[in-house]
């Protein structure tokens, strides 16, 4: 686990695209465009659990059920990155607020 204190949506996108490609068995990561949905990428339950676990490991966080649902419900890869960025920001604020 390595913390990513400056994880912007763009940085997260750059990390998510190849991670999703690997989880969904897609040979060409460039085909995982921002507008692709996880449904169109052929994700099944195990694939999604694998992606969520990778997110937890990469960002050193433990996702709440509501956060997992928000990520699973993301309409496309960009929305997934945006939702994840929002979660990381919220956690950072909560840490600062103590």
């Amino acid at each position, binding site marked *: 686990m390595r913390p990513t204190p400056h994880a912007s949506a763009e940085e997260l996108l750059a990390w998510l695209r190849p991670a999703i490609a690997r989880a969904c068995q897609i040979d060409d990561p460039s085909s995982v465009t921002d507008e692709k949905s996880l449904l169109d990428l052929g*994700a099944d339950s195990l694939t999604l659990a694998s992606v969520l676990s990778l997110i937890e490991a990469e960002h050193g966080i433990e996702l709440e059920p509501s956060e997992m649902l928000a990520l699973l*419900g993301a309409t496309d890869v960009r929305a997934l990155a945006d939702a994840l960025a929002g979660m990381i920001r919220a956690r950072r604020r909560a840490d600062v607020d103590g």
Partner: protein
Amino acid sequence: MSTAERHELERRLELALHGSERGRTIIARSADGRRAYAAVRAAHPEREVFRVGCTAKLFVAALVERTLDAHGIGYDVPVRHVLGGSSGAALGDTSLRHLLEHTHGLDDAAAPETAFRGDGSIDVERLLERVSGRRIAAPGALYSYSHVGALIAAALVETLEQRPFEALLRDELLAPLGVELRRCRTPETFAICPASGGALGLTIDGLLTFVESHRPQVDHAMMPLPGWHPLERGVRLGWKCYAGSWVGHQSAWPGASLLVCSRPRDRAALVVASEDHHAAVVAARALGDEMPELFVPRLPKQRAGAPGLDPAPYLGRYASAGDAVGIEADADGLVLAGDRGRVRLLPAADEIFFLERSTRARAFVQFIVRRRGRFLALWDGQRVLPRAGSPPLG
């Protein structure tokens, strides 16, 4: 259900698919007998026919229950007592419970095609020949998903009832429910298979009716899975068990993915079918916030890197009749070597390792059954691969 509830379900399905719809996708649910449907590319969702796929195993379970009741036989009677002949050599003390709960230990990973006789019944002798002498575990030792259990269970029902499975399914199980057996021509087969479904199809309403009619036998304990799974918890007499007292099954054949679930305590039932997408993923996106107990995955705890990981307990070859992987080590940790090359293993807790790149066969492995300093098997969420050269587990 009310018009407002139906509109809400339609709104949820639309949001879940978000422009990804090409073929038919349908959600059907009921509570206390009140039904609601939402669909894309289907004007009359209740009448749409889908291949049942692996959910056919639920029909086998229901027919077994009915037949055992009629013949006064228990789930724990060795199957060889019914099948007779030379079945004992292949089956040993395997019981119907073992067959339905995937704890029979038979190694059918070479995926034998269903063997039928001229009259349409299952050629159980040929089936047993294929698995004879190949075991991954002793009967009852642990769960490993396969088709062979449902096939032998269906053959046992045929033996007791002296009629082919298809006729029993059509006349004794579905007809009393007012459900018509349908046949879907597929590129592979026009036969009906008790394990993979084959050409067996049902309408969405027919599936819902069957699931609503199911009452699990609560006096039977659930057989837990041998390791981690994000959604499934175990199996009871053919029905997969999920959190929140849901039971059901999934099928993921190309072009026909299906999720059927029942929660008998409040007469809730759910059927999700899709030609494009994995039904469970559609359902999680559409209904996850309403039914989190069914759709929020349980994730393993993370483990920080693998410094100091002793590779020795993991290393070796794990194999069944149709699948084999090697576990190797390099300076950065463990590597899984299979037919399609080498993939790094990323450690989580409880001896779970995610594949850095998923394969068609698996997204993770978990090492299970540790004896004398090494693991004797590998679990991938579906099946168990025993360590090559080890005696059957259990």
